[in-house]
């Protein structure tokens, strides 16, 4: 079993994807019939089905009622450009297995960076100690589950050399400098990530996933009459090398330049409560912060969310449908299986204005006695899965963008954001606006920048009085943090009007 791993990191990736090299239906020592693809994942992690069953048995021996094993091998590559040259590269390899034991809603968790039977049994014993009523574990039969295929790609990152990626990073620099003479500094980055995941649980479910990801972006700094401003533009997808094109380079270069330019004219609005029009796309941050997190069922199960007793109640206007979806093709938020091995769904959080579903992991789905929604996610094998969003968006509404802006006498229009946050219990959420406009008498007037907007989740949801037909998904590098774990997500929105939010600004 202990073959020379010298080229493991490089070639094994190709072996996994090109699984047809292997003969189908290899026999394992347990006489379990498994596909060639699963066999290739087992080989990749140097485990057999027999070993997996031994580890599960050890994890269950103290009386736990559920165990899962999450094997992961992740390779990350980043290229950076500064002062005109692609002059830095970073890479990381992370490899290991997380072992989780549940006893009701109690969790025992340990992980091992060494995937040997001995190391796994040690970790299993640690995780097992959450329970203390030893009992015989009667294993279920092994059942292979073929994952969905939401991220088809044509050129795997495993096969792409630094040499092939460098020119695109260089081009975006040159393009930004070429677009505007005020540009003084450019920082560009290009990152790719490849994860191989193998999953097995005490219910016998055996599944796997291959997860590619890329991100490509540029920061533009300009100077004008002593004033310095900067803005950035980025895209991220579960796609392969084929996504890098001159068209994409031009798109993000132009966007970064436009976003920076507008800042020189921008000021601050008057502080206070006012109508806020959220432009289509990145404004989906409203859904993520105001609604998404507070719908996560771990908070609701514990009664700590402001939405805790609002299931099946009317929370918004009838035309509002809000979705959390893990199935969007090649989307940054897509996953073929969640990190608890469950199928991934398109989940209506709000349907026709009614709170339709929370966002569930295995523990909360059992608590609420519902089907898992495929939202159990973890940053890596080092963490326990918890309810997390994927791609969160609102379906188009009945109004038009012009109609919505025309409705506002004095307020702000915002469409470019950097970050947000929410207090789950109080429901107060915030998002930071990089740029937007003041609306006066139904028209966009003065540009604004760098203000925080704050509101209350249930009130803001109820206050969405108009939604347009111009829905747009945002493809930026959104990363969501919770309990110290980061996961990739996306968001989207049509143009909407929120009747009132508190806008940061000046008091003159």
């Amino acid at each position, binding site marked *: 079993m202990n073959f020379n*791993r*010298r080229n*493991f*990191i490089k070639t094994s990736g190709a072996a996994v994807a090109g699984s047809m090299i292997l003969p189908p239906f290899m026999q394992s020592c347990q006489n379990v019939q498994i596909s060639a693809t699963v066999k290739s994942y087992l080989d990749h992690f140097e485990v057999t089905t027999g070993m997996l069953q031994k580890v599960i048995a050890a994890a269950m021996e103290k009386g736990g009622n559920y165990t899962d094993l999450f094997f992961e091998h992740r390779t990350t590559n980043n290229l950076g450009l500064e002062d005109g*040259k*692609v*002059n*830095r*590269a970073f*890479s*990381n*390899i992370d490899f*290991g297995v997380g072992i989780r034991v549940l006893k009701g*809603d109690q*969790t*025992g*968790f*340990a992980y091992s*960076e060494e995937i040997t039977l001995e190391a796994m049994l040690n*970790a299993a014993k*640690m*995780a097992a*100690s959450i329970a203390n009523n030893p009992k015989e574990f009667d294993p279920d039969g092994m059942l292979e589950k073929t994952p969905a295929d939401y991220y088809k790609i044509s050129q795997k990152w495993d096969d792409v050399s*630094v040499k092939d990626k460098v020119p695109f990073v260089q081009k975006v620099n040159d393009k930004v400098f070429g677009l505007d003479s005020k540009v003084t*500094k450019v920082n560009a980055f290009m990152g790719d990530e490849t994860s191989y995941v193998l999953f097995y649980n005490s219910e016998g479910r055996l599944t796997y996933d291959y997860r590619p990801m890329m991100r490509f972006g540029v920061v533009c700094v300009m*100077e004008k009459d002593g004033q*310095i*401003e*900067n803005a950035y533009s980025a895209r991220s997808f579960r796609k392969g090398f084929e996504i890098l094109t001159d068209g994409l380079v031009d798109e993000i270069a132009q966007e970064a330049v436009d976003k920076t330019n507008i800042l020189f004219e921008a000021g*601050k609005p008057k*502080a*206070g409560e006012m109508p806020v029009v959220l432009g289509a796309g990145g404004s989906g941050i409203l859904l993520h912060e105001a609604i998404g997190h507070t719908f996560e069922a771990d908070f609701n199960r*514990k*009664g*700590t969310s*402001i939405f*805790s007793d609002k299931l099946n109640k009317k929370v918004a206007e009838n035309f509002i449908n809000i979705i959390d979806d893990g199935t969007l093709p090649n989307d940054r938020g897509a996953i073929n299986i969640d990190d608890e091995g469950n199928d991934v769904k398109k989940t209506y959080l709000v349907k026709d204005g009614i709170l339709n579903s929370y966002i569930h992991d295995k523990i909360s789905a059992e608590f609420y006695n519902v089907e898992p929604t495929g939202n159990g996610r973890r940053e890596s094998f080092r963490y*326990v899965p918890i309810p997390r969003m994927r791609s969160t968006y609102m379906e188009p509404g009945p109004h038009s963008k012009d109609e919505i802006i025309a409705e506002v006498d004095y307020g702000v229009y915002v469409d470019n954001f950097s970050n947000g*946050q*929410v*207090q789950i*219990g*109080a429901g*107060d*959420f*915030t*998002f*930071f606006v990089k740029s937007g406009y003041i609306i006066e008498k139904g028209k966009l007037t003065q540009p604004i*920048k*760098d*203000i*925080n907007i*704050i509101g209350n989740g*249930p009130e803001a949801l109820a206050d969405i009085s108009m939604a347009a037909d111009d829905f747009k998904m945002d493809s930026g590098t959104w990363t969501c943090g919770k309990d110290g774990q980061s996961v990739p997500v996306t968001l989207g929105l049509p143009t909407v009007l929120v009747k009132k939010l*508190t*806008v*940061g*600004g*000046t*008091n003159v």
Partner: protein
Amino acid sequence: MTKEEKYSLARWAMEHAIKNGAQQASVIISDSRSSSIEVREQKIDKLEQSNQHGLTIRLFVDKKYSSHSTNRLNKPELEGFIEEAIAATKYLSEDEFRTLPAPELYYEGGGPDLQTVDNDYDNVDPQAKIDAAFATENEAFGKDERIISVTASYNDGINERVMVTSNGFEGDTSNSYFQLVASVSVKGEDARPESYWYETAIFYDKLKKDGIGKTALKRVLNKLGQEKIESATLPMIVENRSAGNLLNPLINALNGSSIQQKQSFLIDKIGEKVASEKLTITDDPFIVGGRGSHLFDGEGLAAKKRSVFDKGILKTYFIDTYYGKKLEMEPTSGGTSNLVFETGNKDIEGLIASLDKGILVTGFNGGNCNGSTGDFSYGIDGFLIENGEIVKPVSEMNITGNMKDLWMNIAEVGNDVNKNSSWLTPSIMFSKVDFSGI
């Protein structure tokens, strides 16, 4: 892995890089262990244990630079990893500013024991950890009928790292932490406010183990009855544990990378008055038992005590070797160690009592600061103060302004330093800040 095994592997990896085409290299090998016990509803909700290790190698190949890390430390695989990394580096552009530090700037040994690690980490009784978590929960659990949820957790960890460089540096550091946290949610009229409290220590015996649950409960009950209030320009007191959030953009602006990449609002300001004369901060790496104490930094540069702000005058930037070369400045260190304030003579109660009208900020809710301009806007958690007393909790408020103006407007620096952090922030009062409400 023992320390000697780490040194041995680090030297081997460094030499392998040099043999295969790197002119310079540095290697860090670290391992860390941690444990965590979370309790809720009088039972253990989550038990976690971890044990991890990793190698990071920085490569300088034909004037080109890259950095790589892995948690797979067997030599045959590392050989391939390093060789591929060197091959990949050759496709990058040259960067004349990339080198290891000048050897004369390295720490040369002989420094004092800064007490950064508890050598009894492994001897802490696991049952005592569990008991501490339950005791913390019990201080709040069932103590008020409005309580919805109490969670308490005990966390600890230990880390050891060694670093070697191809131009002569060898050094190792060890750090440990112990932490108790309580968070409590209560039912208000509609909202369900949550608050938390924590204590941390480098040594288990020094961890304050009582009062945490009680304080979390007291803080969340204080939040009941939150109200939106009108926009106003008012004095602001920021509680010691939250003051770091406002200090952060100011320190970021001193970073070599921010300066050189023009993402700082304090470019070319050394020697100038950039803040109120009430602001005096020293970066002191040598505090025994300090959370940020060290004898050398991440590059091996010997640590030095430095004045950062002296009565509002900017005294130093935080410059590593790379940005030092780019900026033609002497490297200081790429980051802070312990930031020590010159303190005033009032604690937070004293500061509150001194205000006719203002806002006490006890936490931040989102927001950001534009690093190039210093423009900021943050959501806040806090209380309205009138006639020297707390009147009521406020909700949905933002503060908005510019960092340069904010730090010029310090009214008073408190004396109640937060020792849970390497940034030893006291409570700070600012004379006027724009608050947005209704």
